[in-house]
């Protein structure tokens, strides 16, 4: 394993130190392990807290700031944060108007956030939990863990964050977040496996000309393995899967997302193919974002996310945001 680290056991703590050094404009609590806006808690403002395993950077810490999250809790690599940590972040951003937990739908994340919400309730903090489960590669069913939360998390955090910033109440902010999630679908391909510092070797072996289709963001294998095909075909297959899962009967926000090890030039090429195919399918693109935003360590791969965007969502998407990972209008 070749990584710029000192000791596999200390990666998250040391990266958090570095994040603090890189972003003095944010408050980093290295003991309790959360990142919060410097001005938190803001009286009367609904607080937005997210978190999850580390290794998905810039998600979530990179999305803390004006117009997006109030706090983020990074767990160990690919391991959800613990309830104490989530509780500390929740406390830190509660301005009396309640707190929304944005939780990607993984058993670990769901359980730890649930326990934290119970602890917060014991302290008199009202918490609304919003689950993100946009990954159409996984079949939804009440008998399974359900769909995974992936690329749409960025959209949920951005749009709900804007709603909270402009003074939306707890129910409104949570509703905005749920609407975005309900309107979104994602699908991902991996060209290589990810290597966690602790494991020290790639999560799976992938022969030279094979790829994994329908992967998540935790280095796990996908739904099936297939031969590498031209980007044009992969984009079409991915978009077909997304378009089949939900009605996309109007303008969309398109996220072309790299999984960490994919160069931007490939993501732009993918964006071009996606734009062409969506035009063919008659789906107008209202907004688009291209980059490595919801990642899986060093995995070479990409995900496409579509969100069927209402005018209101687009208005909130366009609203100012000032975070390390996403910034405009401010």
């Amino acid at each position, binding site marked *: 394993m070749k990584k710029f680290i000192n000791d596999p056991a200390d990666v998250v703590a040391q990266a958090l130190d570095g994040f603090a050094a890189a972003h003095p404009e944010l408050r980093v609590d290295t003991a309790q392990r959360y990142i919060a806006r410097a001005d938190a808690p803001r009286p009367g403002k609904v607080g937005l807290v997210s978190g999850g*395993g580390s290794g998905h950077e810039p998600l979530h810490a990179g999305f803390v700031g004006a117009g997006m999250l109030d706090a983020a809790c990074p767990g*160990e690599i*690919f*391991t959800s944060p613990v309830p104490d940590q989530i509780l500390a972040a929740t406390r830190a951003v509660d301005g009396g108007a309640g707190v929304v937990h944005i939780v990607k739908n993984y058993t*670990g994340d769901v*359980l730890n956030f649930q326990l934290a919400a119970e602890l917060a309730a014991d302290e008199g903090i009202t918490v609304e939990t919003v689950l993100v489960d946009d990954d159409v590669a996984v079949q939804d069913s009440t008998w399974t*863990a359900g769909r995974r939360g992936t690329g749409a998390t960025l959209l949920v955090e951005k749009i709900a964050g804007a709603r909270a910033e402009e003074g939306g109440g707890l129910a409104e902010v949570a509703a905005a977040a749920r609407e975005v999630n309900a309107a979104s679908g994602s699908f991902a391909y991996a060209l290589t496996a990810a290597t966690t510092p602790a*494991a020290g070797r790639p999560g799976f072996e992938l022969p030279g000309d094979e790829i994994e289709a329908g992967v998540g963001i*935790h*280095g796990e294998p996908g739904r099936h393995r297939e031969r590498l095909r031209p980007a044009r075909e992969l984009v079409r297959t991915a978009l077909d899967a997304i378009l089949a899962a939900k009605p996309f009967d109007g303008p969309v926000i398109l996220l072309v997302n790299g999984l960490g090890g994919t160069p931007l030039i490939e993501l732009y090429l993918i964006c071009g193919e996606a734009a062409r195919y969506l035009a063919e399918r008659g789906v107008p693109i209202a907004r688009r974002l291209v980059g490595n935003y919801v990642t899986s360590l060093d995995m070479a791969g990409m995900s496409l996310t579509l969100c069927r965007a209402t005018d209101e969502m687009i208005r909130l998407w366009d609203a100012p945001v000032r975070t390390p990972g996403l910034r405009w209008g401010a």
Partner: protein
Amino acid sequence: MDVALAREWMRATAAAVAAGADRLTRLDAAIGDGDHGVNLNRGFTAVVAALDQEAPPTVGEVLAKAGSTLMSRVGGASGPLYGSALRAAGRALPQTSAVRPDELVAALRAGLDAVRKLGGAAPGDKTMIDAYAPALDAFEQAVAAGAGLAQAAAAAARAATAGAEATVPMRARKGRASYLGERSVGHQDPGATSASLMFQALSDVSQV
């Protein structure tokens, strides 16, 4: 089981998890995200440290302390699940410095109920439950048949190991492995494997 034995159990579990961390992580890499060994190792190391520092006076408090430590140190799916299992088990015990095997049965049953309630998984879903449930059944039957702790724990350990192995052909319906669908078949569940380590540790420390 007295307080000393309860602590020995946790200590032996920590040792087994440390020794098996690589294997657990490899199993988790195959059908999950490759962190189960690291997660539990971090957790049980903290459990041993917490028990050394606090020395809880009852068996129930030992288990409850272990549970809350796992809960606040592990994260992931296994942290809350093992954490609430041990916490529920500890709280179900009488506040005494030693407990009878049948009291332990009831406590472990409360722990299993907590796991099922929190995680929503049923037997056959390819989770820790598939080692825990048969182990507990074997333990209960042995105790009902008049066996002592050592004998009952040995039966439980055997059932846990068999239960873990029986997860190989299962298709996962809960946890990360469920995302793999058909591809989860043919691999042993990491959580079921770690559960069998816990019952094996109980058996080990119970033999005299």
